[in-house]
């Protein structure tokens, strides 16, 4: 359910005054129509979780979507993990809430960062993301586009261990390999081992290091200037809270007379949905309740377009080199300049440049004379 319905719908009220009826056109109902159609069509979302083993990724996913996706999981021993390679495992579930259907795909990356030698352990992940882009590219350029399945990864949650002093080299390398292919949202995992001061220090450190290394994490879109103050304040708080420090839980405990998701310790109970305990609620709101569609949009408009442009450029440069007109994939006739026109253009460019130089020289001479 969307929490902020920021459009106002008006159903035409039948009054005796016919003048009003004439002035009312009725396209204010468009948002309603969009809403109806989208509910009928259903939504899909692909979420990737990445991070070392034991960071609480599965627990967090279960807490986010209030279901149990990892029922019969088998974990590897330390011995088996010495030379482990990274796998990609997809779990797809269909969930429904208030008539809205969501096809949720969680892409898991077991084995990331677990081996002793983790050189290029992010390669299977980047390959997977590129594969999905490539497949969508082919589908989009095909002849029958009725049932395109969008398997592109819309968001990647990266779990940073809270035991260190900031980002580690493997974290930096992973994020740099992926920041131009997918929306990365870094999270501080297992935040119940950090006191509030420590959390703040770690968040500042991580933000600093993200800037320093030039990592482009997902940025929340700026809110419009005509939003009310409360919303702007919330938005500002959200932005200052990144990276989110999260805690997940598979169990329900009794706290303050209520049954809540939490972790029971001898010294107290950590409530997952308590805002003063961790940022889980902020993450959930951001990921599901307000920015899910924006994540999809950024994936389609920015990351996918980058990939597509790069792909096409590579192909055209290859075509120009080979001087052949056969293309590896069935694309519609693009306006690719053929070799002759290019040569012509180059020549004309040269001429222009020469004339420009001559003009400059003449101008110079005139100045000198003066």
């Amino acid at each position, binding site marked *: 359910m969307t929490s902020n319905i920021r459009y106002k719908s008006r159903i035409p009220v039948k009054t005796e005054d016919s003048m009003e009826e004439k002035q009312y056109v009725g396209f204010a109902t468009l948002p309603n129509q969009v809403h109806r159609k989208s509910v009928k069509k259903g939504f899909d979302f692909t979420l990737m979780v990445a991070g070392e083993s034991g960071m609480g990724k599965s627990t967090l996913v279960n807490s986010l979507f209030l279901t149990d996706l990892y029922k019969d999981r088998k974990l590897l021993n*330390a011995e088996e993990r010495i030379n482990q390679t990274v796998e990609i495992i997809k779990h797809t579930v269909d969930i429904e809430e208030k008539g809205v259907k969501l096809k949720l795909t969680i892409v898991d990356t077991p084995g990331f960062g677990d081996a002793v030698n983790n050189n290029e352990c992010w390669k299977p992940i980047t390959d997977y993301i590129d594969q999905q882009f490539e497949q969508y590219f082919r589908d989009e350029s095909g002849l029958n586009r009725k049932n395109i399945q969008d398997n592109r990864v819309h968001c990647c949650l990266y779990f940073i261990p809270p*035991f*260190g002093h900031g980002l580690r080299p493997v974290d930096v390398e992973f994020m740099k390999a992926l920041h131009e292919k997918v929306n990365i949202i870094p999270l501080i995992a297992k935040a119940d081992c950090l006191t509030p001061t420590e959390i703040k220090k770690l968040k500042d450190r991580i933000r600093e290091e993200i800037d320093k290394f030039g990592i482009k994490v997902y940025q929340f879109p700026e809110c419009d200037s005509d939003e009310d103050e409360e919303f702007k304040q919330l938005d500002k708080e959200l932005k200052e809270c990144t990276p989110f420090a999260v805690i997940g839980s598979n169990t329900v405990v009794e706290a303050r007379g209520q049954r809540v998701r939490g972790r029971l*310790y001898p010294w107290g109970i950590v409530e997952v949905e308590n805002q*003063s305990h961790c940022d889980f609620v902020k993450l959930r709101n951001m990921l599901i309740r307000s920015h899910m569609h924006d994540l999809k949009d950024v994936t389609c408009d920015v990351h996918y377009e980058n990939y597509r442009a790069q792909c096409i450029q590579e192909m055209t440069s290859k075509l120009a080199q080979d001087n052949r007109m056969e293309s590896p994939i069935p694309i519609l006739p693009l306006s690719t300049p053929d070799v002759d026109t290019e040569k012509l253009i180059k020549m004309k460019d040269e001429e222009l440049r020469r004339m420009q130089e001559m003009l400059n020289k003449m101008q110079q001479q005139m100045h000198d004379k003066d």
Partner: protein
Amino acid sequence: MAATDVDVFSNEEKRNLSLGGHVGFDSLPDQLVSKSVTQGFCFNILCVGETGIGKSTLMNTLFNTTFENEEASHYQNGVYLRPRTYDLQESNVHLKLTIVDTVGFGDQINKDESYKPIVDYIDTQFENYLQEELKIKRSLFNYHDTRIHICLYFIAPTGHSLKSLDLVTMKKLDSKVNIIPIIAKADTISKSELHKFKIKIMSELVSNGVQIYQFPTDDEAVSEINASMNAHLPFAVVGSVEEVKVGNKSVRARQYPWGVVQVENESHCDFVKLREMLIRVNMEDLREQTHARHYELYRRCKLEEMGFKDTDPDSQPFSLQETYETKRKEFLGDLQQKEEQMRQMFVNKVKETEAELKEKEKELHEKFEQLKRMHQDEKRKVEEKRRDLEDEMNAFNRKKMASETLSLSQPLKKDKKN
């Protein structure tokens, strides 16, 4: 010399006598104690764990003081060890404490070589002690023993199992040093998860043959408590130097929004157990084990490498002196052989070079001869040509003179005609 106890008096009859009164040699342990107190004690701890896992904080908490320390960065190129020595005193007992930190452990992307600096460091300390022991003029009582007595291995609280790096490193270290594995930052694991985690860790260590330090159970005074502590390994610890007010006391604790984790509360974490075991009960045993087991193993391996044996092929006990002599002779023999070889090589080389030079000389000679011959040929030819030319010139001159005389007589004839 041998490692087993030699019963010197085995041939003689031993008799047990009862004393008629109080002699007083029951004060021997006290004398030993006062001697060691005056000498001071020495203890060396090695902390192995990822950056930021809480090694320095735990040391501060254990010894209730603040050892100066800068935060390590995650971006070291490799692992290096940082030993620091401190002098502590409690009542009248002096302790020379050395804490060795592993900086950069677990941070690199390729951790294949991470265990090497640690193993090298431990071996170096053993080597130094061995060198001191083998010296002619040695002062072992004065020697600052830097051998590592205990390695605290910090395991990250993932809740699943050991990391692959942990397993590989502990396997390399278990025959060189006493290892006590501890679960760091244990306030992130709930009780039920902790129980499962400990069992998983111990079973992984056992199934991979990693020998961690077992608290000794042969001394009745401490066997009971040691046995029960052995069952609690690995210890799940929480470290803190900050004080929080709980009830009406100020205790070392960590303050969270959902509660306060007290470091010295046994139901919160195993810190008290670790302190008991490490410092209050078994410190001396750790030093003994290091000397009697790990160091002796190192020494034996090293000396065997050098060629020393306890028994020669005839199973007669060798003395160190004889072994020295034989080794020395061998060494000198080797040296001589090498010298001979080098000389041979040198001579051969000289011969070769001489032969080459001779050949070159011959070649040059030949060339010279050839050139000379050519030169002479040319000279001859030139001479011939010159002679021809001279002949021609003479002939021409004669002809000229002849024609001149002819022309002289011609004009007379012409005149006569006219």
